[in-house]
């Protein structure tokens, strides 16, 4: 048994949620200039329809930071949840949302959108493209991500049954194809400096300059995935003995797999479409929860959301405090902090790691 008693899921969730609110507040206060909590709360109240505006530009700045923080929370939670669902479905601790082709597909979609914005399309298409404006990229990214997952799922299902191992292999193959197309787009667009820089910047991920719509999109994906959790939480625990054993116990295995896939795809697609490629969260957060608290999915999955949000926002805040704004992409601090921490956890819990 582990040397320390693990905390109970319920209280842990409450503690993490409270911590998250605190970090969100600090994250909004911090920026090119420190705004006190009072100012921030008044600005946020105005957004909610209560209270007066702080005037220009303070109100706009508070709102920018607010959407940034809410987007970061949504992205971290969505990626954490997606990772938990995927690792539960694959019964493999190395699985992450990018396996399904979400990241690759979103990248391809975003690149196409940037090409459109840069003017590399016939006139009629271009006029249509100005409609959504800055939202063109998230829209294309979302469609690209979901489309890729759909393709992977389609190729991996025979006679209407989804095979998990085939899903893994097809995901890898499709990812390679997409990476090839993406590389081709990148090299062909080198002639236009602005476009190629924009495509490259997207792949690094960004939480800057997010708007209300970005936050709404990612929270929409998150809530859609969260709706899946009651239907798969208990069932994923029974998956540990194998799909056949779960079926013998009465679990409708096919439905659980489809729900997990849909939930994971929606949340990861929304997250990547809105914030670009942020690695590491989907892979590491479920492990952190498993090692720190429980592997029962009905508790693991909710904890993954709040842990993912705290992890992403916390690392982002740390990065901004230590290095200043916009110096490094969001994923870097997480890899620098999370990587060694993850190794430390793995070493401490070597014995428990058996099947995972």
């Amino acid at each position, binding site marked *: 048994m582990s040397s320390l008693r693990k905390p109970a899921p319920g209280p842990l969730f409450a503690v993490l949620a409270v911590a998250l609110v605190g970090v969100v507040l600090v994250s909004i206060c911090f920026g090119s200039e420190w705004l006190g909590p009072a100012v921030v709360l008044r600005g946020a109240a105005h957004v909610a329809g209560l209270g007066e505006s702080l005037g220009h530009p303070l109100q706009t700045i508070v709102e920018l930071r607010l959407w940034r923080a809410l987007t970061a929370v949504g992205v971290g939670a969505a990626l954490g949840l997606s990772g938990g669902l995927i690792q539960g479905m694959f019964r493999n601790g190395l699985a992450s949302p990018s396996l399904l082709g979400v990241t690759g597909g979103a990248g391809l979609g975003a690149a196409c959108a940037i090409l459109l914005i840069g003017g590399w399309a016939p006139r009629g298409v271009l006029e249509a493209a100005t409609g959504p404006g800055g939202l063109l990229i998230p829209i294309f990214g979302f469609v690209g991500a979901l489309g890729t997952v759909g393709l992977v799922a389609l190729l991996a299902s025979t006679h209407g049954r989804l095979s998990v191992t085939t899903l893994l292999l097809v995901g890898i193959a499709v990812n390679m194809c997409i990476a090839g197309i993406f590389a081709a787009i990148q090299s062909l667009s080198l002639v236009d400096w602005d476009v190629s820089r924009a495509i490259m910047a997207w792949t690094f991920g960004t939480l800057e300059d997010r708007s209300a719509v970005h936050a709404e999109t990612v929270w929409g994906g998150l809530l859609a995935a969260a709706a899946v959790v009651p239907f798969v939480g208990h069932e994923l625990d029974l998956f540990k003995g194998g799909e056949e054993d779960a*079926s013998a116990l009465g679990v409708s295995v096919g439905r659980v797999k489809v729900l997990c896939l849909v939930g994971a795809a929606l949340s990861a697609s929304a997250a990547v479409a809105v914030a670009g490629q942020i690695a590491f969260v989907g892979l590491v957060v479920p492990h952190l929860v498993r090692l720190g608290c429980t592997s029962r999915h009905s508790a693991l999955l909710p904890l993954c959301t709040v842990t993912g949000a705290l992890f992403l926002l916390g690392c982002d805040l740390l990065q901004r405090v230590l290095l200043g704004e916009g110096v490094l992409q969001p994923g870097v601090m997480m890899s620098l902090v999370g990587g060694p921490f993850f190794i430390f956890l793995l070493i401490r819990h070597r014995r428990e790691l058996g099947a995972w």
Partner: protein
Amino acid sequence: MVGALEARGLVFEYAGDDAGPVRALDGVDLRVADGELLVVIGPNGSGKSTLLRCLGGLARPRAGMVALRGRELGAYAGRGRAREIAMVPQYLPALPDVLVAEFVMGGRYAHLGRWSGPAAVDRRAVDLALAAADVSTLRQRLMTELSGGQRQRVLVARALAQEARVFLVDEPTASLDPEHQIHVFQLISRTVAQARAAVVVTHDLNLASQFATRLALMDGGRLVAEGPVGEVLRREVLEPVYGSALHFGTLRQADGSRRPFVLPWAGGQFEDDSPST
């Protein structure tokens, strides 16, 4: 009397190599009633495990049908079927982080509501199951810490917790020492005595002889013999299937009945203290 579980004309194929599809089951008819412990024996590759999976609804046969209490198995929803049929698999992958009590509670899945956790009735069922399988003292242990015999009994406990009336057990004694082998079969026997039906697949002809109500012998996907123990465990029946390195004898039971035993032994002969007395 409507059999608890009945199979008619089961055919199961899987895609083989260039030679074409392989028939694991080639037209099998079977029935088992409440209170019966049907033991299925046969050499490796005779289709025993496939038969069990078809009976449990885990594999869809190419032809034929399985009926549970008169209704076709396919008509049952997953949970409904799990409330009627419990499978005890041969082995499960390593389950770190899972306590015995949690594992056995997994058997209650078919009875749980979606939005509520385990209720008092579920906890009672788990307690009873653990007690019946004689593993109550192990309830707070991790699954990975159990010995072979303990794990087998916990698997049976989970099936008991399902409160199903039909048990399908796959090779329960494969890796157990003799004492535990008998314990597990005794447990299954006790369960059957409470108006349940059980189909047990095993290699062990002698355990089959001790505990079975009826025996079914399979070979090459077909049922080649079926009936009471004394009729099936005979040289004429077993030799074509298992070969000739078998010695036969009988043991007298406490209740006066005689049960045959089969000893796989190359060469050798029984001496004077012949077991037939």
